[in-house]
């Protein structure tokens, strides 16, 4: 039975069919395995340097775990963004969007399915990061906290960034435009993480760091892993990632349901 036929028989669950097909396309025929391999190489290099390089090994073990968790979250959510940015503009460019729109699945269900497919890259990235975090965190009792807070914040950021990428992909006429714009916005969001710590001082600096979901998530993860517990003051850093994930997911679904259509050339 084809995916379309299954979707027709189980209309309400069409998004699961679309999602499953998207996951198959990404992982069996697409670039997801290659991206996962590149991600694991990145974590391997980071972990090896943290363990053997004199300068990096100077870091206290908690700092090493925090560094790796933050890299995992950043790179993992980047993978989700890349997949989402390709979701509809890629179909449009390959000339397959028309046949996709002709399936019994509604546009909302297509959007949900595509979003879930993109998020599968984050889930895989998190699974890959588990042995590295367990290794770096052994003996200091922070691995559990790092994994829990990493999964929570990474999932929020992945939903936020994948939704952002999908919104762009829905409107973009080509994959090049979609990927370029998505990566530019991602860089803009990550840029403040490179600012010196002194930039966070003062109300304007702190407000910028708290409003930006990426910097807020990075700060929260760092604080929880370094301090070993999440205080009520630190919990305020969660607001921005939660709001961004919820708002952008809703907007992506709305935009997909209302504005997903064929354009000139595809």
């Amino acid at each position: 039975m084809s995916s379309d036929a299954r979707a027709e028989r189980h209309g309400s669950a069409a998004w699961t069919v679309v999602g499953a097909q998207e996951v198959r396309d990404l992982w069996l025929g697409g670039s997801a395995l290659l991206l996962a391999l590149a991600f694991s190489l990145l974590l391997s290099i980071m972990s090896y340097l943290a363990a053997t390089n004199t300068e990096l090994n100077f870091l206290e073990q908690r700092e090493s775990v925090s560094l790796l968790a933050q890299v995992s979250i950043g790179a993992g959510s980047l993978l989700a963004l890349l997949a989402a940015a390709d979701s509809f503009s890629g179909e449009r460019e390959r000339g397959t969007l028309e046949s996709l729109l002709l399936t019994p699945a509604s546009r909302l269900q297509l959007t949900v399915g595509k979003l879930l497919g993109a998020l599968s890259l984050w889930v895989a990235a998190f699974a890959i990061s588990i042995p590295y975090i367990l290794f770096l965190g052994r003996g200091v009792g922070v691995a559990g906290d790092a994994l829990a807070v990493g999964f929570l914040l990474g999932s929020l950021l992945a939903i936020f960034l994948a939704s952002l990428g999908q919104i762009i992909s829905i409107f973009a006429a080509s994959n090049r435009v979609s990927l370029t714009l998505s990566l530019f916005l991602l860089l803009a969001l990550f840029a403040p993480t490179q600012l010196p710590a002194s930039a966070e001082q003062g109300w304007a600096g702190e407000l910028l760091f708290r409003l930006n979901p990426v910097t807020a998530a990075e700060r929260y993860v760092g604080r929880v892993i370094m301090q070993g517990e999440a205080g009520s003051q630190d919990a305020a850093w969660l607001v921005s990632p939660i709001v961004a994930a919820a708002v952008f997911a809703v907007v992506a679904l709305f935009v997909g349901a209302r504005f997903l259509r064929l354009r000139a050339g595809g």
Partner: protein
Amino acid sequence: MPVGSALRAAIAGFLATLVVADGAAAASVTVDRARVNARLGDTFVFRTEIANDASTPTPALIAHLNILSLRDGVYVDPEDWSSRRTWYLGKLRAGDNRSIAWSVKAINGGSYAAYVAVLPQNRPVRPPEMSPTVRIDVENRATLDAGGILPLAVGVPALLALLGGGVRLARTRR
């Protein structure tokens, strides 16, 4: 007596005073603590207050932080410990004072001493006056044991490469 007041009284009791004399003008140099306990990599701040207790202005003053190890054989590069070690204070009017916050990062484990030298800017031939010493005890922290990292660093990517190769092979055969 509340704990906070007792602490303040203890610190105030410790405060020592030195004098940077320049004719009739004089400046006193105090530090806000005698001892700091830190962990390797921690950043902490201690303060000095330079006050002109005389009735005339001081000359332009310079305050400079120095750090040394109390144990032989431990190399200390003060630049690594504090990125800003020199403050140009200018003149202090009669009764005026300047507070300086010295930000210090604990770079190595062990016992160290920090002190601030205050000297007149225009007459550097005069010996500088030293603040009371702040003793810094830095607790060593466990860094990562590298044993076992290589199999992990190689194994995970190798496993994914095998998986990718297997998937590609299966699709080709199909």
